Every structure is written in C-alpha cells, then in structure tokens.
C-alpha cells in the first residue's frame, strides 16, 4: 500500500513538472496508443445503444420541436437573403480597400474529423480524447469545433490520439463577441453547474440583450492573440444583469454545443502552417 502511494505521488510530481515530450509523457503516449483500439472498439459497440436511446428520447419532444424549427427556418431564410447581399457588398468593399484580414473560419482551415473515444475519469477534468493525433497534423492549441459551434482546443497530442480541453473547463478562457452589439468579453465556465458559460468583462455601455448571438472574437491584438479564429458560434445570451457596484455586466450564455454527448468533433488545422 505504502509503496503504491509513494509510486503514485512520484508519478504525479513528475507528470506535473515534466515538459511536454518528456520521458513519462512518452510512456503515456505509448500506453494511449496501445489502449486506442480498445477504446474505439468499446465506443463502437455502445454507439447503437446510445443512438437508440437518443432516438426514443427525441420522439417525446419531436412535435413541439418541429413547429419551432419551421418558424425558425422561415426567419432564417429571410435573414440568409439579407446576409448574402451584405456579404457580397462587404467583399466588394474589402477588395476596394485591399483589406488585410487575419485567417478566416472556415476557409483558411483544413478540417480533421475525429471520433471521441475517451471521457474524463472524474467530474474535475472537462476533457475528452479523440481518435486522431500528431500523424494527422494535429498540434497543441488547435481549435476544435463540431456542427453546433466551438468545442475547445487541443491540449495534448500523441501520434494517434489527442486530448481536447472543453470550453466548459475551469481553465478555459475565450475572447468572444456579441454579434448584435459588438460588445467583447471573455467566455468562461459559469460555475453554476451543467454546461452554462458566462461572458465576463463586458462594459456596461453595451446594450447586450437576451437571445443575442455570441461568437469567437478572434482577437489578434497584443502579444497573445486568440487561438480561435473569428466567427465560430459559441452560444446565445440567456441572462444579462448588472449592479451599481459591478464594473462589468453579468452575462450568462447557453452554449450551442451539448458537451455531455460529444460523439465526434472537427479539429481545425491552419492551412498556412508548416508541418
């Protein structure tokens, strides 16, 4: 017992202090590669059952959902026409001005599609492991998305797997933008349980409203530019509050991504990166 505790403490110390690519990290990388087939196999065996559960669960809400989606579809169709015109006008004006823009999403990124094969061993780590790694061109800090929006970023890679730290992790901060008002802030964990997020450092002069769309700001200023390209959907504002003593508004966000049921993700690789 004592020996095992000492061994575990030694591993924690080395693992915590070691730089990425150190000996213990290499051993872990080999172990993760060996375990990958088992994880992929288990995930494939369970997927039909999970899909069946999702199908039956979806039936209960299907009717109300269909009506809501029909109304939303009509509204979005009208907005799409307006946005197409605005996009064309914007492109023409940029050409006139010879405007130099930072890498844009999704055109300047190559997607790598990967299944989620590992989930955290406890509630403390908001991280998942995906079935793609260094050999697919993935590097630490690459952004990760899915069809709904921003998922997180790569925080560790082995040849065949990679670790994604989710947007809901306590350590994650993302510079973000309220599309309706232009207010900027930092999206971070809401600490209120579930998947809630908050947008912090939003100045009081902005009239942020409920249902406003929040996307990544892709800030390129300063010595630490954002890791995420501009314009990736994050979520929708659900609550805005402020008090006389607060310096900033309190903005809660409901993310589009369902972090509790991630099956597959897309890693965005910058096209201009030298491999």
């Amino acid at each position, binding site marked *: *017992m004592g020996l*095992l*505790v000492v*061994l*575990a*403490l*030694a*591993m*924690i110390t*080395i*693992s*915590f202090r070691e730089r990425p690519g150190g000996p*213990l990290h290499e051993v*872990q990388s080999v*172990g*993760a590669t060996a*375990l990958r087939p*088992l*994880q*992929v196999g*288990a*995930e494939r065996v*369970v997927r039909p059952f999970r899909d069946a559960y999702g199908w039956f669960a979806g039936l209960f809400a299907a009717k109300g959902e269909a009506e809501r989606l029909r109304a939303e579809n009509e509204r979005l169709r009208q907005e799409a026409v307006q946005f197409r015109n605005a996009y064309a006008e914007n492109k023409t004006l940029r050409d006139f001005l010879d405007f130099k823009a930072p890498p844009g999403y999704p055109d300047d990124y190559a997607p790598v599609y990967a299944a*989620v*094969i*590992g*989930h*955290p*061993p*406890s*509630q*403390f*780590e908001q*991280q*998942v*492991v995906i079935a793609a790694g260094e050999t697919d061109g993935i590097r630490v800090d690459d952004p990760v998305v899915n069809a709904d929006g921003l998922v997180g970023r790569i925080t*560790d890679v*082995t040849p065949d*797997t*990679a*670790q994604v730290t989710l947007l809901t992790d*306590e*350590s994650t901060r993302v510079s973000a933008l309220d599309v309706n008002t232009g207010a900027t802030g930092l999206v971070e*964990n809401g*600490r*209120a*349980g*579930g998947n809630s997020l908050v947008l912090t450092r939003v100045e009081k002069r902005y009239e942020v409203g409920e249902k406003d769309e929040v996307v990544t700001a892709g800030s390129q200023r300063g010595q630490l530019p954002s890791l995420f390209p501009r314009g990736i959907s994050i979520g929708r504002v659900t609550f805005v509050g402020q008090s006389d003593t607060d310096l900033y508004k309190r903005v809660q966000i409901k993310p589009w991504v369902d972090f*509790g*049921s*991630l099956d597959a993700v897309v890693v965005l690789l910058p096209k201009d990166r030298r491999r």
Partner: protein
Amino acid sequence: MSEALDALKLAAIVLVAAVLQVAVFGGWEVAGGSPDLLLVAVVAIALLRGTLAGAIVGFFGGLVADTATLGTLGLTSLLLTGAGYWAGRYGETTGRDRSHAPVVSVAVVTVLYTLGAVILHVVLGEEVAIGRVLGSALLAGVVFNVLLTFPVYALCRRLLGPPPSSLDRAREVRLLA
C-alpha cells in the same frame, strides 16, 4: 496455478472496467453526475479479495484511466489505491458477511473519493467548481454508483468466487470480557 488465474481475472476485470469507464460511462452525464464503473469494480474486488488486492487493482486501474485520457499520471491511481485499501479493510474487519456491505462501501467510497479528488486538485493548483462537484454531481454520482453496485458485485463474485478462507483469519477486533 489458481493464484495466477485469479490474478489474471483481476487484471481482466480492472482493464475492462477502466476502458468502459473512459470510453462509455464517463460520457454519460445525467443530473450533473455520471457513474464510475471503475471505482465500483475496485470496491467490489477489494471486498472479495482484501486490502492488498484492492489497493493493487486500484493503482493499476487508475493508471490505465490516466493513460487513456492523457491526464496527470498517478492522480486517479492514488485515489483508487486509497479507495481499494479502505474497502478491503472494511470487508476484512466488519463488513464482508453483511449483505449491505457492497452498497455501503460504494456510497462511502464515492463520497471520500470525491472529497479526496477535490483536495488533490486544489493542492495541485487547479481550479475546481467545488459547489457543483460536492453538490448535485456528488449526489447523482452516489446514486449511479449504488445502482451499478448490484450487477458489478454479482459479476465479480461470480467470476472470482467467494473470498478465500485465508482472509477469514483477519483481523476483527473482539472484546474478550
């Protein structure tokens, strides 16, 4: 020969539990919590095979989980080693013959494991949403783990057989007055 076979079975159980926990159960989140198959399996093995086996399978189960998730190596090992040792000790001294021992062990170990994890993460300087983890997540985790205890303990008992008689010599405190 039988000891080698027993060790092989223990290794297989803990490997399967760790892989299923990482690939399947860890992704299920209901009411803020999720089941921990690996923890339940370690407790079941500890009750059936004692402190030493409990601590060893806890250590290696944690090592597999930390390796597969690319987490901090040793963290889950340390917690599960303690969980296995405690459950084994409880089984050897007071609990083994009682029908409610597996459920009580799993419920208590889930709470202690969570508290230990909070302390470890805070000591390592990581940010932890303590209110959430010790609130709804812990409650849901205890419920899920207790529900998992019945099939997992029954399966482990079927695969491993009843506790060996050598464990019966231990170690109950008796009052001789």
